[in-house]
C-alpha cells in the first residue's frame, strides 16, 4: 500500500464520524523505484491531507525532506522537495501491517498488496 493510497482512505466501519486517517501499526515497508513525475506531484499535493502524510511518513522513517506545511500556493518549485514527496507518496510500499480505525480501533490487515476495505458492519 502506498502512502498516497493511505492518505485517501478512511475507515470502513459503519457509522463512524471521523475515520481519517487510519492508524498504521505493525508495518513493514519496502521501497521501489518509481519514475519521478513532477507534474503529477504538483497536481496531487493540493488534494492531500498534508499533515496526515507527514505524520505517517515520519512514523515510518521516510519523511525526510517533507515540509511541515505546504506553502499558500500549494505549489512546490524545489526539485529536491518534490522528489522527497514523490518518494514518500509513491516509492514507499507498506507490504504488511494493520490499518486501525481511529474511532473504533477495529483493525484490517492486508496481504498481497491489497487493502481490504469492505464495509465493516459490526
Amino acid at each position, binding site marked *: *500500500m*502506498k502512502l*498516497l*493510497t493511505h492518505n*485517501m*482512505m*478512511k*475507515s*470502513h466501519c459503519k457509522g463512524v464520524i471521523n*475515520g*481519517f486517517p487510519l492508524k498504521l501499526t505493525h508495518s513493514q515497508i519496502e521501497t*521501489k523505484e*518509481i519514475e519521478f*513525475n513532477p*507534474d*503529477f506531484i504538483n*497536481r*496531487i499535493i493540493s*488534494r492531500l*491531507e498534508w499533515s496526515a502524510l507527514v505524520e505517517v511518513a515520519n512514523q515510518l522513517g521516510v519523511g525526510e525532506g517533507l515540509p511541515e506545511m505546504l506553502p499558500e500556493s500549494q505549489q512546490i518549485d524545489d526539485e529536491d522537495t518534490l522528489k522527497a514527496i514523490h518518494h514518500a507518496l*509513491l516509492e514507499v*510500499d507498506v507490504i504488511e501491517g494493520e490499518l486501525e480505525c481511529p474511532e473504533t480501533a477495529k483493525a484490517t490487515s492486508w496481504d*498481497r*498488496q*491489497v*487493502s*481490504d*476495505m*469492505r*464495509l465493516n458492519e459490526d
Partner: protein
Amino acid sequence: MKKRQLESLLQDVEPFSRPKMDLEQYPTDPHLAASVLFTIQSSFGDIEDRNVLDLGAGCGILSIGCVLMGAGSVTSVEIDNDAISDLVDNISGYDMDDISIVQADVTHLPFRSGRLFDTVIMNPPFGTKNNEGIDIEFIEAAL
C-alpha cells in the same frame, strides 16, 4: 503510443479465472479497452499524469492500460477475492508498481470526501443479474 500498440500490449491481460455471473464478471476485450483509453487521452487528456480510479477493476485491463498510457497513479477498486487474485497476477505479469489495489464495495467506497481523483474509469456491471440499478450506483459512486 499508438492505439494499435496499446491494444497489442493489452492482449497479455489474462481474463477471469473464476468468473461470477452474479457480479457480471466479463473481461473487457483489448480492442475495446484500447479504443476507450485512447479516446479518453487524445480527446480529453484525462489519463497522462492524472490520478486515476478504476471502479470494478476486475482483471485490470483498464488499470493496466492507464499505466501504459502514462497515468500518474492508478487505484483499482474490486470487491471479489478471485478477481483480485487475477488482478495481482496480471499486474505482476506487466511488472508494474504504479497500481494500488483496494478491495471494497463500490457502493461503500472507503475514501474521504473531496475531489481526490482526476479521472474515474469503469466498465461496470449493467444490472442484468438481479442487481438492477447497479450501473447507476457505479456512476453515482464515481461522481
